[in-house]
Every structure is written in C-alpha cells, then in structure tokens.
C-alpha cells in the first residue's frame, strides 16, 4: 500500500492532530490548566482554519484522489471545509462559558472531543466518492451529535431531545441505506463514478424508488419538510452551543455532500427524476418552515423553524445545478454560519446569565442590554435578507443561480421563495420589535457577558457586515466553483 496517499487528506489529518492534542491535554494536564481547554481547542482550530486559507501547503490546487478513488479532494472541497472550520471556531469560542459552568466541568473534555469527531465525519462525507465512506462519515457526524444533545444531564428536555434525535437519525439511516441497496442492485458498484456510468440509460421505476429513499434519508438529516418533525424539539432541548452547531455546520456540510451525491452519482437523472423531487421539497420546506416559525415563543424553537426554511433556500443552490448555484450555496452557508451564530451567541449569553429563552422575556431588551439587542438585530436583519447586510446578498446570489436555467418552473420556484422571504421578514422583525419597541419592564437585568461570548459575537457581527460589503469573496468562490470538477456534471 502506498502510504504517501495519506498526504492527500491534509485537512483531515490536521483536524485529527487537533483532536489528539485536545484529548491528551484533557487527559494529562492538571485540573487548573484544564479550565483553558476551550481556549486551547479554539486556538488550535483557528490555526487550522488560517492554515487552510493562507498556507500553500494546506491548499489544494488540483483535484486529487486517494484510496482507489474512494476519497477525493479539490479546491472546491477544500473551500467548503475551510468555511466549516470558520463556523467551528466560533462555536468553540461561544461554548467556553457553558463548558466551564458548574455541572459541565466533569464532562468538558468529552464535549470538545465529540464535537471534533463530528467535524471529521463531515469532512469524510464531503470528500467521499464511494458510498461506504459516505455512510461512515454520515454516521460519524450524526451519532456523536446525539450524545452531545443529551449533554445537559440536569435538564430533562435534553434527554427528550436526544431520544427524538437518535431515533429519527437511525430511522433515516435505515431509509437511506435501503435506497442505497437498490442503487447497488442496479449499478453493481458503490463508487459514484461507476454508478454514474452504469445507470446510463437505465431510467427504471426501481431507480425512482431508490432515489426517493436516498433523498428522504438525507432530507431527514437536513430537516427538509416533510422530514422535519424532529428538528424543533431537538433544537429546543439541546444545550444552546450544540443547537448552534447542529443548525449551521451540520446542515452546511450535509447540504454540500447532498449536492456531491446528486451530481456525481445521479447527475444523469437531474431533469427526469430528482429535480422534481427537490422542487416539491423546496416549496414545502420554505413555506412550512416559515409558517410554523411565526407562532413560536421560545427563541431556540423559533430559530429551529427559521433554520428549516433557510435549508430550503440552501437547496435552491442544488436545484440550480450550475456553477453559479454551487458558488451561491457556499456563500449562503458562509453567511448563514455568521448570522445564525450571532443569534445563538446572544441567546446563549442570555441563557447562561439568566436562564431565559422565551421571546416575551426579550421585551425591552434594548434598555437593559443595548449591545446584545443590537447584535440580535443585525443577526435578524441578515437572516431576513435586508441590505446591506450579508444575508441580502446570499439570497440574491442563490436566486440568480436558480434563475440561470430560465425555465418557467424555476421562475415559479423563485417567486414562491421570494414571497416567503417577505413572510420571514415578518417574524424576524417580531424579535426586533420585542427588543426595541415594546416598552414593558424588561425581566432580563443588565449583565456583562463573558469575554469568550463577546469575542464570538464580535466575530459573527464582523462577518455579517464584512461579507455584505466586500465582493471579492464571492468572486473568488465563483472562480473556484467554475473550475471545479463538479462543473463537468452540469448540463451544457
């Protein structure tokens, strides 16, 4: 065996090194210096992220394959991993206060180890070119997450959320694997390339069933409607840091892996089979997510439904099926990471200080905690898509990508998405209204949030404003997407 091919997995190896250092640090350092574990893991992750962007050695200049084509990496894959790394750094920083709190000290190390393992699983899932590697990555990303959802042992909701998450995760895996077994029966191989070649001209009923199973299985992980019923409960019950992680990074990674699977294994059947499945899913996801978000009073539940509808917008980048769509999807995930993590930073800070998560508690927040209220407002504006914040441009680009095909069906789809943007504006502004306009006595007393929480929110707010104003970032994403290996799968 040629051991040099491990060098193709530079990013995975860097992440494993971070994991090992965190593990050994937690195991062997004295109790007092172990309090710095969150800081250590965040700094290590920051180094990996910076290396991914600025160090040529970690950059991937050309598509590379390893392990008999089971693993592949390329500039576009390296970029999406770097984007996930950014989100990971913010989550690690924001979770520091919670991880060092009273009941968590015993299990602090486990949290950071598990969270790094799930990121490793997502890396594998994105890089997989064989369904075995893909499934291992998928499980590696979703099983430790169930343990993390159950992390708050002293809160009953955490356990209820965890059992709902694990049962639906296993159920969706079973559905996905069933579809996969049909694909294997049709194609005789589990390599994406071989499936692509073998299925040429095999548009049978069995393929439609298999694809429906595969899409349903991944749809569960992405919480697309009608597979979304676990989302709200899990997001509400899980510790806030874990909810933040679930809603942005897990979702972003799965969405990109979904695109890879659909394009590289089933690209031939875009217009015949899966375009229409996705079409229905997107309309349902955006609409139902938005309508249910309106009536939520718990902030975490509210953001759960908002994240369902955001997943629908991310799917627009897949159904566009062109290089613009890929670039817009990456940009959308990047912006979504910053906006959602800013919102979760505020929610987490308030929850850690006062234990309140209801939207009614936020009434008049501006008078007691103006900075938190302002951060929350920016996050809501960005999620809703108000210019000049980043959220507007991410929505704009993803609609542009979807309209490239210029078919009437796509125009209808984008129109429905646009109408839903207006609906979403209503409920995002409800939060802003509660904080700024309602003049009830605020139940949240003025408090000073922890240093780590403030750093996390500063980074997120900087990202929201910066990404909205600096266009070269999107240009570079477009250049990467156009030269990517995915382009050869797109039509025309």
């Amino acid at each position, binding site marked *: 065996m040629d051991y040099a091919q491990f060098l193709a997995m530079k990013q995975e190896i860097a992440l494993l090194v971070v994991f090992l250092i965190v593990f050994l640090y937690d195991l062997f350092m004295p109790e007092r210096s172990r309090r710095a574990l969150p800081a250590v893991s965040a700094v290590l992750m920051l180094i990996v992220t910076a290396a991914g962007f600025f160090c040529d050695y970690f950059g991937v200049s050309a598509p590379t394959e390893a392990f008999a084509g089971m693993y592949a990496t390329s500039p576009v894959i390296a970029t999406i991993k770097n984007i996930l790394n950014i989100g990971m750094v913010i989550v690690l920083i924001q979770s520091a206060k919670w991880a060092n709190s009273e009941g968590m000290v015993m299990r602090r190390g486990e949290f950071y180890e598990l969270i790094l393992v799930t990121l490793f699983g997502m890396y594998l899932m994105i890089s997989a070119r064989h369904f075995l590697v893909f499934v291992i990555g998928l499980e590696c990303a979703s*099983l430790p997450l169930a343990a993390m959802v159950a992390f708050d042992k002293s809160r009953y909701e955490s356990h*209820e959320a965890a059992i709902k998450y694990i049962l639906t995760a296993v159920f969706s895996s*079973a559905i996905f694997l069933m579809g996969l077994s049909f694909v294997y029966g049709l194609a005789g191989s589990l390599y994406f390339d071989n499936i692509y070649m073998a299925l040429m001209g095999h548009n049978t009923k069995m393929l439609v069933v298999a694809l429906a199973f595969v899409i349903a299985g991944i749809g569960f992980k992405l919480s697309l409607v009608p597979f979304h019923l676990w989302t709200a409960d899990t997001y509400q019950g899980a510790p806030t840091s874990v909810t933040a992680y679930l809603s942005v990074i897990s979702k972003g990674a799965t969405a990109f892996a979904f695109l890879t699977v659909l394009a590289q294994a089933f690209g031939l059947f875009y217009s015949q089979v899966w375009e229409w499945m996705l079409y229905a899913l997107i309309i349902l996801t955006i609409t139902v997510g938005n309508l249910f978000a309106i009536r939520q009073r718990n902030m975490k539940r509210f953001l759960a439904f908002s994240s369902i509808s955001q997943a629908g917008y991310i799917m627009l980048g897949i159904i566009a099926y062109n290089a613009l769509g890929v670039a817009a999807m990456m940009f959308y995930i990047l912006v979504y990471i910053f906006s959602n993590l800013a919102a979760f930073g505020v929610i987490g800070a308030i929850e850690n200080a006062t234990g309140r998560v209801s939207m009614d508690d936020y009434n008049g927040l501006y008078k007691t905690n103006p900075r938190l209220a302002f951060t929350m407002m920016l996050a809501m504006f960005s999620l809703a898509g108000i210019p000049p914040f980043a959220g507007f441009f991410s929505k704009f680009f993803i609609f542009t990508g979807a309209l490239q095909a210029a078919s009437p069906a796509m125009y209808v789809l984008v129109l429905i998405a646009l109408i839903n943007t207006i609906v979403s504006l209503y409920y995002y502004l409800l939060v802003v209204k509660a904080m700024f306009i309602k003049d009830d006595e605020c139940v949240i007393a003025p408090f000073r949030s922890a240093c780590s929480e403030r750093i996390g929110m500063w980074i997120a707010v900087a990202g929201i404003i910066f990404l909205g104003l600096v266009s070269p970032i999107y240009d570079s994403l477009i250049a990467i997407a156009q030269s990517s290996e995915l382009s050869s799968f797109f039509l025309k």
Partner: protein
Amino acid sequence: MEITALYYLVPSLIMFCCGLYGFLTRRNMIAMLISLELMLNGVDLNFVIFNRFLFPGQMEGMIFTLFGIALAAAETALAIAIIINIFRWVNNIDIRELNQMKF
C-alpha cells in the same frame, strides 16, 4: 426447484416493512429500537443478496454489510444509553410520556 434471488428479496423486504410498521406504531422505546434493528437487518440482507446473485465476482456488498452491522450496533448502544437516562428521569419508557416539548 431452483431458489432464485426473489426468494431472498421478498423476506428481506418483509423484514424492512415490519420494522417500518413497528417503528411507527409501537410506543415502547425498546420496541421501537428493535423495529429499527429489523429495518437495518433487512437492508443488510438486501446488500448480500444483490451481491451474491447479481454480482458474484466482487465483494462490495458483503463488505458494506459488515460495516452496516457495526454501525447498527453503535447506534443501538447509544440509543440504549439515552433510554436509560430517560428511565431515570420519568420511570417509564413509553414514548407518549415524552411530551414536554410540543409545537
């Protein structure tokens, strides 16, 4: 009488559907877990059958099944741990009792 792939595929599909039905109707969490296990085993069987009858020259499906069994075991272990935690809280493993969070 020759035993063709169909003789194996139908039982595996029945297993999968029984698991599906059980998961949707049973209210005991352990029973739900057993149903999930049935579904996963039906899938494993499917892979082996397709490999044995359609592509006997290679081992891809068999290897996939091995990994599938390991994944199912890991999932069950984790789910049982969470169920035990819930039992400590509510002295019950009926899924209908878990209704603190709704709508």
